[in-house]
């Protein structure tokens, strides 16, 4: 008898999505922002249930509900809750508010499935669920051409990426005869599997490439700046944090539990992805004038930082815990950054960095939060970004990726330039227009929450490191344990010697 209780958060969110979509039919005047609050509370509730529920691996290990998936849920649900709160400010203006929250919630469910995936099938299912919802969300400002363009771009490129993942998965399945991560691990360590390694690496490379699209790593990043710029800021906030975290969760789950033997190929791939992401992302961001576009390129670079840890060897616990911690703090930081963009857009109608000019006089609290966010993205202590980046680089250095750490540290200096250019607009220059600007209280509240989280993680990172460590050991323990118990199973099915297939 399978224990279905751990599935409660997933069920809750699915029901929530349907309920919110139904409630969206109530006229906007009569619900006054209630949908956003319902979604936020639902997300909070799901987070609570998820943290309390026991661990389980239902459905023959298709889902792995363990410390890792719980840690991922914290990231996704926190992003969902904060964005929902901020969206209440927009709710009366949005034509399809119910659908907006429903799609956002469904996308979150998809991401949670990616974090909890026990095999390629679940991973792909989660990937599709989250991405398809995002196609619609990116085009949510229907009357804006750029939004439509963003949606179309995401749709076409996203579909290609999904196809690439699926193609890779089919090759891997063809070689190994299984889609479950732990069985794959065992099959690979099997002596006869060695002959098929070229095809196997080909498949794995395709899977990694498809996921690299999701996390916007160079050279699969070209969609990111355009879509970030075109999509509504609230959607971009989700796209750049939770969706990216989902991609990394899948990568970590996949590379962490599948112990690829002699994985020089894979680590070389990750090293290259990481190095060029940091360099291209940071250098491209230097010349941007549009705030959201700049954040898009900065997000590419941030993916590069996280990839340094992954390149150091996906098997070490530091890699997984540091990446998870960084994704969590990055979720708070970048959501806040895009909410600032939203607030500025509401007030001035512009997305340019120059629209932030003199914010310290026009709205001091928002200016303070924005500066904290920029400094955190730049990795300045005592903010979260500093601890996170240091942790990532520690993991990378331990794994022997010293060159990557050097590249990361030096490109961070270049990155600081464009973050400081934003700070310069906010604090150093006086506004052309001295009037105060109004920002919706919901957005201020959401940004303040994020700022508080950035400070808290930065000053006292201990609980988050502990959470990451627990998640890391969950991934590894299952992989090691299953390797042992799964080995005989594979040996028995050896008759069909997968590697002999053409």
């Amino acid at each position, binding site marked *: 008898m399978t224990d279905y209780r751990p599935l409660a958060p997933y069920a809750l969110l699915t029901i929530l999505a349907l309920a919110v979509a139904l409630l969206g039919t109530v006229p906007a005047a009569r619900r006054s922002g209630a949908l956003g609050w319902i979604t936020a509370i639902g997300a909070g509730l799901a987070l609570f249930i998820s943290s309390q529920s026991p661990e389980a691996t239902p459905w023959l290990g298709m889902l792995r509900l363990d410390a890792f998936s719980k840690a991922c849920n914290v990231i996704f649900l926190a992003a969902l809750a904060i964005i929902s709160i901020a969206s209440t400010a927009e709710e009366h203006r949005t034509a399809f508010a119910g659908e907006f929250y429903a799609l956002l919630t469904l996308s979150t469910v998809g991401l949670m499935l990616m974090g909890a995936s026990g095999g390629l099938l679940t991973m792909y299912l989660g990937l599709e669920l989250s991405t398809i919802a995002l196609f619609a969300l990116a085009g949510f400002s229907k009357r804006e051409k750029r939004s439509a363009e963003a949606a179309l771009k995401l749709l076409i490129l996203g579909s290609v990426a999904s196809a690439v993942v699926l193609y890779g998965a089919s090759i891997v399945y063809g070689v190994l005869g299984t889609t479950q991560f732990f069985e794959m691990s065992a099959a690979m360590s099997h002596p006869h599997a060695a002959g098929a390694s070229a095809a196997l690496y080909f498949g794995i490379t395709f899977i990694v490439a498809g996921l690299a699209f999701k996390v916007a790593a160079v050279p699969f990043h070209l969609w990111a700046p355009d879509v970030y710029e075109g999509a509504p800021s609230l959607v971009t906030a989700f796209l750049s944090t939770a969706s990216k975290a989902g991609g990394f969760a899948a990568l970590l789950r996949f590379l962490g539990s599948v112990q690829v033997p002699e994985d020089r190929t894979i680590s070389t791939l990750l090293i290259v992805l990481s190095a060029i992401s940091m360099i291209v992302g940071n250098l491209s961001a230097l010349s941007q004038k549009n705030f959201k576009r700049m954040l898009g390129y900065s997000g590419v670079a941030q993916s590069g930082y996280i990839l340094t840890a992954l390149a150091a060897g996906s098997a070490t616990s530091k890699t997984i815990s540091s990446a998870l911690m960084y994704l969590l703090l990055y979720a708070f930081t970048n959501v806040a950054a895009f909410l600032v963009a939203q607030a500025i857009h509401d007030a001035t109608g512009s997305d340019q960095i120059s629209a932030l000019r003199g914010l310290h006089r026009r709205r001091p609290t928002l200016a303070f939060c924005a500066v904290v966010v920029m*400094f955190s993205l730049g990795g*300045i*202590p*005592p903010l979260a970004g*500093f601890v996170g980046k*240091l*942790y990532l*680089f*520690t993991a990378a*250095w*331990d794994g022997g990726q*010293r060159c990557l*750490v*050097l590249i990361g*540290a*030096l490109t*961070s*200096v270049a990155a*600081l*330039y464009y973050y*400081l250019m934003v*700070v*310069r607009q906010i*604090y*150093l220059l006086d506004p052309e227009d001295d009037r105060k600007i109004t920002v919706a209280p919901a957005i201020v509240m959401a940004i303040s929450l994020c700022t508080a989280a950035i400070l808290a993680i930065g000053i006292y*990172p*201990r609980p988050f*490191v*502990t959470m990451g*460590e627990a998640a890391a050991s969950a991934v590894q323990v299952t992989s090691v344990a299953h390797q042992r118990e799964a080995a005989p199973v594979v040996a028995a099915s050896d008759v069909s010697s997968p590697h002999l297939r053409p």
Partner: protein
Amino acid sequence: MNEWLLTITILAPMLAAVILLLIPEKQGLAIRLVALAGAAITLPPAILLCLNYDRAKGGYQFVQDFAWVPTLGIRYHVAADGISVVLILLTAVLITGGVFASWTRPDRTKEFLSLLLLLVGGVFGVFAARDLFFLFLFYEIAVLPMYLLIGVWGTSSQGRTKEYSAMKLTLMLMAGSAFILVAILGMYSYSTVHTFDMDALARTKFDAGFQHWAFFAVYVGFGILAGIFPLHTWSPDGHASAPTAVSMLHAGVLMKLGAYGVLRLGIQMLPQGAQDWSFVMACIATINVLYGAISAMGQTDLKYIIAYSSVSHMGMVMLGLASLNPVGINGAVMQMVSHGVMTGLFFACVGLIYERAHTRIVAKMGGFATKMPIVAVCMTVGGLASFGLPATSGFIAEFLCFYGMWLRYPALALIAILGIVVTAVYVLRMMQKIFFGQFNPEDYHELPDARTTERVAISVLACCLIGIGLYPKPFVDLIDIGWRTTQRPDVIEQARRQHVADATHPLAALLTPSVHAANSETNNDRNRGLTR
């Protein structure tokens, strides 16, 4: 109580910085009083640190140590030795003076003072930290607010906008941080223990190849802040653009962080690497001394003169450090203190002159001594200290630096001493032009002398210079004990053998009272620590 002194010194200014943000901008007096309290409250602990430091025992004292993030090997570990307590005292004096100097600053005072105090909290933290994570964290906190302090409140001059200076300074120092970070990660990952704790790392034996490159990274990283040639270019622009209090603190204390970092992380933790690079360091320091002084001679803007003189004087600090012998190190730290007070005094005086005369171009000034005698006297004392006139703190400091270098590379010491001559030329010429030339009443209708608060601030600084010059022993003792008893165990052993050989030298005996006793004490301590 003793173990809380360091934490109080670090947290008091930071707490005041947070409180300041909560006070409404209109409450001008309250803002200034809170800021002054936040700054001055660090003085009693700083003095207590110097007095309570047990000279017989030596080593690191006032220890506070608890786990922060155990899985990463991060501990909140603060402790101070003789060198740290002296530098903490210097910082406490300068920040108090700095708050006085910004007493009449008109715009956005609240944020200005808040950032200044945050920065100083970081400086205290660096001097006290015994954990590399916290050291780096405090270092960044000390460096970063400079961007806003110069960018918002600075002044543009000579075609260099304040935004340009601020950005240049920040990016160059952050590039230095990248090097420091790499060195720190290298040390962290070197042993299997994986700890940021500096005491534990001091027991790790780093191999020669590692030390070679790690020292280079530490030297370049911290050296940028110490203004080593040719990476000093941020310093003149930055100091010239910064408002008075910020220049005081930046040239007075922040540049010392760089030298302190090279000493603590480089020379003490990577002694072999220091030996490898000592000649390079000495050469660069010599260039610094001469180049800084010659550049200062060519400047017309008063602030640029002082800024280039800082480059020159920091060269002397690095010269002392590069000698790698106790005499030179003592000289280097003494020069840090001396130059810190001196340059703080200089920038305070320059601020006062600029506020009244509305120009910083030396050629336009003249005969100011009749109008502002106190400023003239104080600045002259600073000037005399800057070329090391006996009976000022500059003498003992520079003498020890040059003597230390003489013991190691006599030729470089001889070349560097020429810097003093050049310094004397530009300082005396500057003083003569500003204070003693012909006063032109048409240009300057009114030139009042310093106000009472400012008068107190600059006279105290000037008295410090003379006081230290007349009786440097307490400071030299503290520094010397600190330096000798906080070495790596293997280096102490080596130094003791050398000391026996050096003991015949009169100066060695003069400078090193009871070193043997102190050494054996620390060794006992260390043994006790190990058994525990």
